[in-house]
């Protein structure tokens, strides 16, 4: 993994909107300890903002009543938490074993040519971000691409073209 320890400090306070606030309170009752809310709380933040800032981590720690360092540990350990803003369309390409065998590199190369993006980069207009991720569990329909959480299986360059056309 790459170093994920550099958090972005926005200078603006963070808080949940009404919907996440309610969801937090609903979920916290499902666990015997408040610390169990660390992962769900990080997810709620990412759902709300698309990424997780230093302020959000501090907010979560204080709301749960735990150390900021523990939330920080989790935010950096679990690689699906975005620690900086992503493109409006976040494209994850599975790089592992079966997808690799079935041509994931063609997908990566195409996106590189088409969008001018290498994995780990965000386009200047903020429309796309690209990431090579580890096995997405869709090996039987490899190669697989996940765009904003939606799976697209048996991917090839033609399918990718039509998929990109639908993205705003």
């Amino acid at each position, binding site marked *: *993994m*790459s*170093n*994920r*320890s550099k*958090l972005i*400090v926005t200078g603006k306070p963070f808080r949940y909107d009404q919907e996440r606030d309610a969801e937090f309170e609903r979920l916290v009752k499902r666990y015997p300890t408040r610390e169990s809310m660390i992962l769900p709380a990080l997810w709620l933040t990412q759902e709300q903002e698309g990424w997780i800032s*230093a302020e959000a*981590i*501090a907010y979560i*720690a204080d709301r749960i009543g*735990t*150390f*900021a*360092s*523990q939330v*920080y*540990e989790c935010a*950096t*350990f679990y690689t699906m938490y975005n620690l900086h803003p992503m493109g409006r369309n976040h494209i994850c390409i599975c790089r592992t074993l079966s997808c690799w065998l079935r041509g994931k590199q063609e997908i990566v190369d195409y996106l590189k040519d088409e969008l001018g993006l290498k994995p780990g980069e965000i386009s200047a207009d903020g429309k796309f971000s690209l990431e090579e991720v580890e096995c997405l569990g869709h090996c039987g329909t490899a190669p697989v691409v996940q765009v904003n959480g939606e799976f697209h299986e048996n991917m090839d360059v033609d399918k990718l073209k039509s998929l990109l056309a639908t993205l705003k």
Partner: protein
Amino acid sequence: MAEMVKLFVNGREVEVESGKNLIDAFKVIGIEIPHFCYHPALGADGNCRMCLVGIEDGRPPLVPACKTPVAPGLKVQLDTEKIKKIQHDIMEFELINHPIDCPVCDQAGECTLQDYYMSYDLQDSRMTEPVVVKGKRMDFGCGVVHDQERCVLCARCVRFTRLITKTGELGIVNRSDEARVETFPGRPLNNRYAVNVVDLCPVGAMTSRDFRFTQRAWFLTRDKGICHGCAKGCNIYIDHNREKYKDDVIYRFRPRLNEQVNGYFICDEGRFTYHAENEGRLMAARVDGKDCLGDYAAQSVRAVLGPKSLILVSPDSSLEQMAAIKALSEAVGARLSGYSEGYIKEGDGDNWLIQDDKSANRAGLSLLGIDAGKETFTRLLNSSEVLVSFDNDLFIHDTGSEFRQRLEAIKVIAVTSHDGILTKMASIAIPVASYSESSGSLVNIDGMLQHFDRAVQKNTPYFDMVELCGMLGSPVATASDAVNEIKKVIPSFANVEGGLKLTASEATNVPA
């Protein structure tokens, strides 16, 4: 006495205490099991894998010693080729991404990595590829500087802040070989015990800004001492050195294990009180504004001591010093007070080591029957013509101001280790050795009697306060006189063997 358990190490039967893990149990009988992450105060974590030992017929056959309790009949293997190979391999893994910057590392000379390299590894690096680059010279707060590349990720520091101080400032972020110790942005180390992570760190990853680059560890003489920062009496090491052409100087205090007093730790404030041993000292005797020989100053004091004198004892003085001063006051018919309210910082203490009372031996005053009341002191002061302070800093924490007028009207004599307001007011000032330069006994806030020996030997030693008392007319003029006197006055100390020397072993504190 704990129950004993018989088991086997390398085929030899040994007897160890039950209830301990293999590392601790074997340490007592002189067998070392190498480890980075285990620490008795922090418990077993099991991440470093350096303490893996073989268990003959065991399932599993390989266990971390830190997580393995002693058990009767256990056949522990430490010297098999397999175990030696594992220790060697773990060292290789620890070192492949390590910067090996020992020449500029403060830990060199007292580094577990260095020691274990010599004992268990001793081969050239086989790493041919670029190492993982991480953060250097990171300011973690509280004077702690972190080097992520030197870190072996044992998590002792992290566990200290989570389990001991419960402040949790530190965490290990990321995973794989990108894992690193970090503080959360804007929430640096912020507790009164933070610098203990420097002592806990087995390598040079945590350094103290205060000590960095001041001394190589191997030049330091490590003497045992008792911290005088407050009434707890934490056991410390006084690390000092006399550099060529210079005087003996203290470079740091470090905690010294005493289960009955401070465990493995000390507070940061206490740790840094060593500065006061080096600095702000009264360097020369002075009479009427002129430097003079100490003997001359002592004669001048002796000439004015009498019934109109008030002798002020310090709550920081040792029992021996107190006994000598008390005997002096009786011999010359002077009044005596141990007034020292200024040493108490109300509300500053916590429920662990730090005490409100910033003096080391207040209990000694009452044990020796020295009145420390303010009312008595004020009354005596108002009717005295001479005040002789024996290292009592009346102006500590600004508390002396209310007596300033009276003090300016009478003759003030300061027998003192440090320069200060009172010393400046004094017409006679005599420098004396401070605690790191003398020996003595203290009774801490919990009533534990503890002895300390001289650590620092100045090029030109100051007067020993007990001996000075003798020069001034006290019948108690030596340390042994003082011990005899103490044993007479304090019956519970009568049977303490070997004078009041109790620090030879860590577990011999006698409740007063």
